[in-house]
């Protein structure tokens, strides 16, 4: 309040208070995180920086650009999973559209409680998937990848993260600008009472199920808006554009005015409404979906109206551009709010205390178990763990083919899209709250490295990343410490690899009735492939299995510890920066020299799962010989980073090994694919034997079975 008194020197009107409450919420103002986000590297050879973009822009050559953005819709999805997840998709798509690019792909990261014993978690999961499918499918934007994870820390809660990728011509990017007397238009859906106060709702612990704060999705209108806006773009009718998201008009108007250095005067009377009795304050903070703010001029107005008429969507002139840098809200002749735009848009920032959480010192280093479970049984159980089992049940509900760009389909490491200039784009998002809980810094770096590894497996060089940092209440110093550890770790690794951060989001107050969620940073990496991608070809008889990278004593946070032994603790995997870089570079050179048949990332579930996945894909067994100073459980299930499983044809083996040796990469030849059993041996003793068809059945069907039973 002092900040307001100092700057405004008068009492605020009710409307002004509502506007500031929305805009200065954690959700919109990033008041806890903004200072710290500045440490991330944001420039690079491919990065294009423009004023007022909601998405990152990367130059992919030949006059084309790729845009990317990531958002979450956690609070709404935890209350109303179908609508919450669907509107999450809608919001991020409009951010892509704002830059003047066509959305071409969606990715989603979904996290829920334990679906094996929690019916509510199952309900949230099923409906969030349906919501995403319903929205994305209707728009004709393929959902081509993502991840699903279950952990008891998300009990009665949901994390729904959506990343979108856009594509377009560099020459058609919207160069946000405005001149005095330009018109401010609101295009698309009508404004209603849904989503009123949504940003404040999202900036608080979820205590009540405030359903009116959840927005209602309408993918059909969104589709019409996409086509109408792109037509307006082609006709050069748009000077500047912004999506209406969190904070509704308040946020869009103040941020547009602030970023363009202009004033905007708007009349709430001109906003087209869904309900006639909406008060001006509600109009200003409603988060009704499918709306775009467009700045144009008198000359182009009729063209825009004509295009909107063609698509039967509404277009209202709600205000005009002024010189005074003020945000002026009127209701006819009455002034409801008159505040400097930068004062509204730049909420006061807060310095948060941090302290290392006590729980970290209480974690045990290893579990104690009474009797040994046969390794074959463990492998079979891990293959059916909802976190490892195939997510086919999920992605079959998403149209992942529409747009006819999807070269590598969902279900493999990274998904790959073909671009119009003959290049391909490889994209992956990764999170790992189990690792991050045990070691927030290394866990976050690990998510980043895993996403990089996945795009490398397709032959792509990482060119940019987006991050989404999700934590509990930042007012708790222990939680804030975990946030700082994550962002510092991500920054260090991004700088080391020269991968710019081109977008991101912070989501705090992710609290459940049992306390905060585990730290859940999510990293999306985009990679560019100049020629053809390395396709996932199934392994065949006599192909050699080779592991690049070192398996270490790092079982902490592994699926093995948590799912098999119900143990949280131990040492989480650490990324050795130089090893990471070296392995990435070497694997990419092997791919470019056509020396590998396919490359698979080694991550969740460890080496045993990585090799089993390849066997299931090729419907073929394997004969693997392990020799290491580590214990068997560590070799098989440790989730150490920087590892790649290579499938190599015998005649390429010598050439491949000499390159790896030359690059000083650590590697080991593990065995061959053959027969119909997954066999692991050590010193000629068989330690694990499992029929591939049995493994396949567990891997492919367990998630669907869990959903169907109940």
């Amino acid at each position, binding site marked *: 309040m002092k900040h307001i008194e100092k700057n405004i020197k008068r009492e605020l009107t009710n409307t002004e208070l509502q506007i500031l409450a929305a805009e200065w919420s954690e959700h919109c103002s990033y008041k806890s995180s903004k200072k710290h986000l500045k440490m991330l590297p944001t420039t690079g050879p491919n990065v294009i920086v423009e004023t007022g973009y909601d998405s990152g822009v990367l130059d992919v050559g030949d006059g084309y650009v790729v845009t990317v953005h990531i958002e979450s819709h956690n609070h709404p999805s935890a209350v109303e999973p179908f609508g919450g997840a669907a509107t999450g998709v809608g919001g991020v798509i409009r951010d892509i559209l704002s830059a003047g690019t066509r959305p071409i792909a969606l990715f989603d990261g979904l996290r829920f409680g334990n679906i094996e014993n929690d019916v509510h978690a199952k309900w949230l999961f099923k409906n969030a998937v*349906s919501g995403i*499918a*319903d929205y994305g*499918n*209707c*728009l*004709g934007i393929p959902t081509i990848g993502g991840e699903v994870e279950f952990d008891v820390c998300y009990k009665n809660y949901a994390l729904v993260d959506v990343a979108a990728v856009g594509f377009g011509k560099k020459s058609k990017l919207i160069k946000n600008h405005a001149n005095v007397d330009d018109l401010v238009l609101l295009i698309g859906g009508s404004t209603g009472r849904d989503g009123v106060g949504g940003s404040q709702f999202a900036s608080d612990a979820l205590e009540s199920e405030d359903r009116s704060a959840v927005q209602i999705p*309408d*993918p*059909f209108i969104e*589709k*019409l808006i996409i086509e109408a806006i792109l037509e307006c773009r082609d006709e050069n009718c748009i000077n500047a554009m912004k999506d209406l998201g969190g904070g509704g008009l308040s946020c869009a108007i103040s941020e547009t005015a602030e970023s363009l250095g202009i004033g905007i005067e708007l009349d709430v009377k001109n906003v087209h409404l869904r309900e006639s009795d909406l008060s001006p304050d509600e109009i200003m903070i409603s988060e009704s979906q499918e709306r775009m703010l467009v700045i144009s001029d008198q000359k182009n107005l009729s063209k825009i109206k004509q295009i909107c008429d*063609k*698509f*039967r969507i509404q277009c209202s002139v709600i205000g005009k551009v002024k010189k005074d840098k003020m945000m002026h809200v009127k209701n006819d002749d009455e002034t409801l709010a008159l505040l400097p735009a930068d004062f509204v848009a730049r909420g006061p920032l807060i310095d948060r205390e941090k302290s290392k959480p006590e729980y970290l010192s209480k974690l045990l280093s290893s579990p104690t178990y009474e009797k040994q479970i046969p390794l074959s049984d463990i492998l079979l159980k891990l293959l059916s763990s909802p976190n490892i089992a195939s997510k086919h049940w999920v*992605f*079959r*509900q*998403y*149209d*992942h*083919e*529409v*747009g*006819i*760009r*999807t*070269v590598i389909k969902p279900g493999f490491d990274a998904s790959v899209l*073909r671009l119009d200039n003959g290049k391909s784009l490889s994209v992956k998002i990764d999170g790992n709250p189990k690792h991050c809980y045990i070691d927030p810094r290394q866990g976050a770096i690990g998510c980043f490295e895993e996403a990089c590894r996945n795009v490398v497996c397709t032959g792509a060089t990482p060119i940019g990343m987006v991050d989404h940092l999700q934590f509990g209440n930042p007012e708790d110093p222990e939680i804030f410490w975990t946030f700082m550890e994550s962002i510092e770790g991500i920054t260090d690794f991004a700088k080391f690899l020269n991968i710019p951060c081109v977008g991101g989001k912070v989501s705090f107050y992710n609290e459940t009735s049992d306390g905060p969620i585990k730290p859940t940073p999510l990293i999306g990496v985009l990679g560019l492939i100049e020629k053809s991608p390395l*396709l996932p070809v199934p392994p065949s008889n006599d192909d050699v299995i080779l592991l690049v990278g070192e398996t270490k004593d790092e079982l902490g946070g592994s699926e093995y510890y948590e799912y098999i032994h119900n143990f949280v603790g131990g040492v989480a995997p650490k990324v050795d920066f130089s090893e990471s870089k070296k392995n990435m570079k070497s694997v990419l050179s092997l791919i470019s020299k056509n020396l590998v048949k396919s490359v698979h990332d080694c991550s969740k579930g460890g080496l045993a799962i990585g090799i089993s996945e390849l066997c299931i894909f090729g419907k073929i067994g394997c004969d693997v010989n392990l020799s290491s100073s580590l214990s068997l459980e560590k070799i098989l299930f440790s989730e150490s980073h920087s590892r790649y499983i290579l499938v190599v044809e015998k005649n390429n083996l010598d050439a491949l090994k000499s390159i790896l040796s030359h690059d000083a990469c650590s590697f080991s030849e593990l065995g061959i694919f053959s027969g119909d059993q997954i066999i692991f041996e050590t010193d000629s003793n068989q330690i694990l034997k499992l029929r591939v068809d049995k493994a396949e059945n567990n891997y492919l069907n367990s998630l669907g079975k869990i959903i169907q039973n109940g």
Partner: protein
Amino acid sequence: MKVGVIVFPGSNCDRDMYHVLSDVFNLKTDFFWHEKSLPKDIDAIVLPGGFSYGDRLRAGVIAAHSPIISDVKKLAEKGIPILGVCNGFQILVESGLLPGVLLKNESLNFMCEWTNLIVNNNTTPFTNKLQINQKIPIPIANGEGRYFVDEESLKQLKKNNQIVFSYDEKVNGSISQIAGVCNSDGNVVGMMPHPERAAEAEINQIDHKPSSLIFESLIETVGMKN
């Protein structure tokens, strides 16, 4: 040769279809917005997939009342080849140009999967270069793709050779595993799977040639390119 791709509000495979017709098979292709009329000299029409009118009420039912449909009906009577894919098939059914209905899939979910089609009729303008019983690897992507007709109509369809494609395996509960049908004259064909998603090697790593033959059949029927 001139092909028209009809665009309804909510069509979303229109650009994909255009790309395949125009860039892959070099056909002169134009978009036609649903409120426009169709030129009389057009050689073929494609109704692409998508969610016309957001699938409200029932998939395809609102688009079936679009102004352009009366032109489509006239051209259908004249024997012009007309192909409806996915939502386009649903629209042709709803407008009465093709028999049957498309119901919700047996799984009650949207399904996006690759499957194999079997060619049952190779005398239509879109299948004349295919062999009877030839397999076509192709993706489906729909929520309401379960074809249904009553027993009597099914007998008629079989008798008149109107079943053009069927699924090689049980996919969504379609009666007789029907995936595509034609009108009694054979010039109007509707199919749920997406040939435009399977006619290029880059995106169809199984075998893109059979789907290509659907487009090459059209070229064969109508004659010269361009």
